[in-house]
């Protein structure tokens, strides 16, 4: 595709196409690798294979309709994406949101995070060659998906939020099922460690590769577990608290190694924190309305609105520029995956092909999130 690069070749180097169809790129990411033997010299991502121009579509849609588009960005944290848009709109309208909505949103957001991390864990194992993890991860995720399906009607693209609150109240079984899940998952999560985290082969493969320093993490705009594994305190839930996160106590997991194993550990430990957040909230869902009344046609006052939330992958920013009409004038999603992908070249160079796969797995890229 690129003739200029070909001319600069050293004689030993060759180029290889990883993707758009490749088991390790989890979607349609195409990486153009320049390799010397097994050693990566350069990684150039080629994007846009599923770009749907959601930002342009948003300029056409009403605010209620925008919410469902964000399901299709980072589909593994679709609820949190919905929440981000709704929060932006609610802040712009200065709506008073019922406490019940905030708590339910937070519980579902944390369940989404666990679901996303269990899927990541399964796929992470598969990327390094331990195929069994995939099924163990999916078994646990399935329980969360059932909870979602019962309450929201959909398993993945839930569209449960509307500007002003929730589309409908939680299902009567929601609390019971969530408690069942917590009890189940508390017995299964230690197994994750026994099976994979402590495994000598796994640790040898993960430790000391793909190192990202704190300065680079900040400069590359790394967020979520990727940033926190480098010692960069970037949890939006802590620093720019939203929904019901100010009511719960939880730790921000920080590691300083910045390598692949640190990123892995951050996610595993984050699942414990999410469990504790859910436990704190699940018995204390306040009674009340599940939505605040909004106009059927929502018109945001003229101005600019920015809201960040912490998705399973990191910091999602929603930037709305409104001119006072029923559609946004410009809508920008600052997706975590996009920034996290941009540092791939920085940390993968010098490693082997196997390292690249492991590194990419711990960046936890979701391609629709990058392509939008």
């Amino acid at each position, binding site marked *: 595709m690129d003739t200029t690069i070909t001319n600069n070749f050293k004689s030993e180097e060759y180029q290889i196409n990883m993707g758009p169809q490749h088991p390790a790129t989890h979607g349609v990411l195409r990486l153009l690798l320049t390799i010397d033997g097994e050693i990566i010299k350069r990684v150039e991502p080629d994007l846009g294979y599923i770009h749907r121009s959601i930002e342009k579509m948003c300029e056409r849609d009403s605010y209620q309709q925008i919410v469902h588009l964000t399901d299709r960005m980072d589909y593994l944290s679709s609820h949190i994406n919905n929440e981000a848009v709704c929060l932006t709109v609610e802040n712009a309208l200065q709506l008073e949101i019922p406490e019940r909505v905030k708590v339910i949103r937070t519980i579902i957001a944390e369940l989404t995070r666990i679901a996303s991390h269990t899927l990541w864990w399964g796929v992470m194992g598969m990327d390094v060659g331990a195929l069994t993890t995939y099924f163990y991860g999916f078994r646990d995720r399935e329980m969360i998906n059932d909870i979602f399906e019962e309450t929201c009607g959909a398993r993945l693209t839930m569209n449960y939020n509307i500007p002003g609150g929730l589309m409908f109240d939680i299902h009567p079984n929601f609390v019971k099922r969530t408690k069942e899940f917590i009890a189940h998952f508390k017995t299964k999560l230690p197994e994750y460690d026994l099976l994979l985290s402590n495994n000598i082969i796994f640790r040898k493969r993960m430790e000391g590769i793909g190192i990202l320093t704190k300065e680079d993490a*900040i400069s*590359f705009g790394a967020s979520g577990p990727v940033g926190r594994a480098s010692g960069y305190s970037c949890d939006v839930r802590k620093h720019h608290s939203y929904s019901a996160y100010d009511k719960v106590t939880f730790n921000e997991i920080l590691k300083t190694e910045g390598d692949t194993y640190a990123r892995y550990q951050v996610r595993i430990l984050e699942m414990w924190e999410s469990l504790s957040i859910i436990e704190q909230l699940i018995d204390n869902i306040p009674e009340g309305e599940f939505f605040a009344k909004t106009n059927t046609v929502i018109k945001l*006052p003229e*101005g*600019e609105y920015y809201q960040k939330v912490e998705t399973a992958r990191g910091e999602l*920013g929603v930037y709305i520029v409104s001119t006072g009409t029923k559609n946004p004038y410009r809508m920008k999603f*600052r997706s975590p995956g996009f920034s996290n*992908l941009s*540092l791939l070249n920085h940390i993968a160079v010098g490693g082997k092909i196997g390292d690249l796969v492991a590194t990419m797995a711990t960046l936890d890229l979701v391609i629709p999130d990058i392509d939008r």
Partner: protein
Amino acid sequence: MTNEALQNLISSWIPDPIAIELEFTEEKSQFLNITVQPEQLHQLMTQLKSNPDTNFDYLFCLTGMDWGKELGVVYHLESTTHRHQIVVKVKTEDRENPTLDTVCKIWYTAEFHEREVFDFFGIKFNNHPNLKRLFLTEEWDGFPLRKDYVDEINMVIK
């Protein structure tokens, strides 16, 4: 640092307020907005990052904008030490050949974000190391996120 203190500090950097125009506003936004001329962009950004009092080391959002008449870029900055935020806007009226300075030497993340802006708005960035289309193919005609972009086949307008 509060927005007011930030505004005072940043204003104090400018020796000659007439030559370099900075517009401060807090209207219709939760952040302090600075509008800067394209020529001064790079210098201001370098200062915002390197000055220990401001230390905006985290560029958390870089948005291309089409204001109808002008094209431009909106930079959302945050300091991870002071935890204050600021928005820098830069506009250019040249729609045929809009050119701005790159900030990707200051914040590495800008490299990809600027490519995205180039892809969708056609804003060129001086000194960018790898300014190519990111999402669209090289032969794509036009810049889809501009307001005057028309594509009768693929765009459904309600």
